[in-house]
């Protein structure tokens, strides 16, 4: 009932907008986002400046808190009152979820004029389309499956960066014997989920990961391979110090930095912590893709909402064009520690970890192993990923057996629809 009223109202609004003649005001955009902390705020200011330089009026609407929860609540209120912002920081399947509510705009004209299809990897482009039409613009690509290490500790203990989980376990056992914490980890549900998906990618392979966490195939979720993933998680639990519950991820990163711990599994936002502390990649700390072939991405993007008025629609198109433009993609990602979503950006100014990430994104895209991160809301909707995370974190924080965990996983996913 509500939705049909919405659709009717927005169709009507579109009609009136197209009938009214050219408005005189310049492009306008109201942008809802939750990039409010230091580095992130600096990154979004770049976009703001570029938008103004192109004659636009930018209305900033930052909503801090709860990793975006607060912003989503604000968005819900705005949409329900029929007054959606021009662009909203949204990602992954959440874009499709909002599209199904009938409130997203179509920006295909910009995307086609700018040739987005040619410069974005296919699997990332797919997230930006709603039933074939472009409805969102990607900002960056964070890689999730990174293994960070303290170079000095590895050298002192004569350990190379592991290429398989057996090698990782052997290295970790050696470190334990030497009295070093092998894995720096913070016991928060999303961090448990991050380690879990990285282990899963390594042990299930790209195809298995895709089946389990994109298709939510119950057979794959309940398979013996999944039992092996939970077995490895139980091992990982043993490699973590006992004081880990509730620890923030950046504190875990500083444990690696200070030599208290050897490894951390975390997305490339961890790099920002190392760099901010004046550490040099390759010398003080090492970055490598975690054992297993594949690339788990976490792509931030702006979804474009249906708005009335030529000035706002012009603003929306300008914004979309600038976001995917080469200059913004470079400057923003240099600030944020991620890599550009488009593959044709000059990478000279980026560091060696970013080079590795960009190269592996291109190869994995060709091999079909460029996959969405489940722990960071790219692979499935909130209710499903939440249900999986509940099981993962319950298993990690108790003495539940792997077989029980797998059984719980299958029921939890079935119950989440």
């Amino acid at each position, binding site marked *: *009932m*509500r*939705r049909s009223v919405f659709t009717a109202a927005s169709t009507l609004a579109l009609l009136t907008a197209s009938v009214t003649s050219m408005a005189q005001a310049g492009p306008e955009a109201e942008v809802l986002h939750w990039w409010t902390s230091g580095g992130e705020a600096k990154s979004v200011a770049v976009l703001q400046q570029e938008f103004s330089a192109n004659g636009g009026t930018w209305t900033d609407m930052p909503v801090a808190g*709860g990793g975006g*929860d607060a912003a*989503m*609540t604000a968005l*819900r209120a705005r*949409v*329900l009152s029929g007054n959606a912002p021009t662009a909203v920081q949204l990602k992954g399947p*959440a874009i499709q*979820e*909002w599209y199904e*509510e009938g409130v997203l705009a179509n920006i295909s004209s910009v995307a086609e004029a700018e040739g987005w299809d040619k410069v974005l990897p296919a699997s990332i482009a797919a997230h930006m389309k709603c039933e074939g039409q472009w409805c969102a613009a990607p900002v960056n690509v964070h890689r999730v499956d990174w293994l960070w290490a303290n170079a000095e500790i590895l050298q002192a203990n004569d350990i190379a960066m592991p290429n398989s989980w057996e090698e990782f376990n052997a290295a970790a056992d050696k470190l334990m014997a030497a009295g070093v914490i092998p894995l720096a980890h913070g*016991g*928060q*549900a999303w961090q*448990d989920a991050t380690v879990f998906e990285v282990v899963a990618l390594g042990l299930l392979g790209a195809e298995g990961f895709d089946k389990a966490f994109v298709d939510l195939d119950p057979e794959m979720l309940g398979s013996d391979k999944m039992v092996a993933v939970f077995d490895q998680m139980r091992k990982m639990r043993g490699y973590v110090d*006992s*004081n*880990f*519950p*509730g620890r923030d991820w950046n504190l875990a990163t500083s444990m690696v930095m200070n030599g208290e711990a050897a490894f951390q599994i975390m997305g490339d936002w961890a790099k920002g912590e190392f760099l901010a502390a004046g550490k040099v990649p390759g010398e003080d700390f090492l970055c490598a893709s975690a054992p297993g072939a594949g690339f788990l991405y976490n792509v931030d993007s702006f979804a474009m909402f249906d708005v009335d008025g030529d000035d706002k629609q012009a603003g929306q198109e300008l914004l979309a064009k600038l976001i995917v433009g080469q200059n913004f993609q470079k400057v923003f990602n240099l600030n944020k520690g991620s890599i550009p979503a488009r593959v044709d950006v000059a990478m000279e100014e980026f560091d060696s970890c970013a080079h590795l990430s960009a190269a592996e994104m291109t190869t994995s895209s060709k091999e079909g192993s460029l996959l969405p991160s489940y722990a960071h809301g790219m692979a499935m*909707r*909130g*209710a499903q990923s*939440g249900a999986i995370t*509940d099981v993962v*974190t*319950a298993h*990690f*924080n*108790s003495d539940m057996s792997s077989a029980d965990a797998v059984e*719980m996983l299958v*029921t*939890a996913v079935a*119950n*989440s629809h």
Partner: protein
Amino acid sequence: MRAWLERQIPKMVLAPSFVAILIFVYGFIGWTAWISLTRSKLLPKYDLHGLIQYKRLLAAPRWDTAMDNLLLFGALFICIAMALGLLLAILLDQRIRVEGVLRTIYLYPMALSMIVTGTAWKWIMNPGLGIEAMVRGWGFEGFRFNWVIDPDMAIYAVVIAAVWQASGFVMALFLAGLRSVDGEIIKAAQIDGIPGWRIYTAIILPSMAPIFLSAFIVLAHLAIKSFDLVVALTGGGPGYATDLPATYMYAMAFSRGDIGQAASSAMVMMGVVFAIVVPYLYSELRAKHV
């Protein structure tokens, strides 16, 4: 005219708040009940789908944990806070010298927000920073106090912080109750040579029954709506070991885009509150009719 006005003015003055309560309390309870019968995800939808959300709720192990935690937390919190509050009140009632200062000290925790309490106790009970580290620093290497990071014990850590916060307030309630008991009766008992503890158990405490009931109601609803304490102290963790119904509802509504599920959990929470409050209201109202 004047008599008419005198009769009508109270009604007119009360009407706006009456209407507001009708809409914003009962209206939204009704709305939530409706939503709990739908498959609403990100935004509310209004097509009914039967009891699907309640079935999902009962099948979710996390909800089980949340309800078990509420029972355990509620029972321990109410009992310990009342026992401790009563003990403190009786001790303070012994006509001691600096009573005013002590009373203020014990009452102060209530002035703190639960977030502050939670954060402070998180540090105090953190094995690497707080009590455990301190006692080990004194040389007792074997000392362990790691409740806050142990999934089986973490809920008791929450109880400790909650009791610390609320028992001073309960003490103040009881102290007022103790002081309101008729001094003549106590003096009469003392003249009869009845020992002090007997005076408390046989005379003072029984005459304080209404205070016990109010303290119970206040603590029970504090327990059921506990949210900020858990968020600040453990974040619901380790895992979801210290989840409570309120944190479950928040996660569903605001993090997971599962409004239907959140609404059904809110309705169950309301049921729990009613189960406690209705018998109380019933006894109160009946007492007035007699």
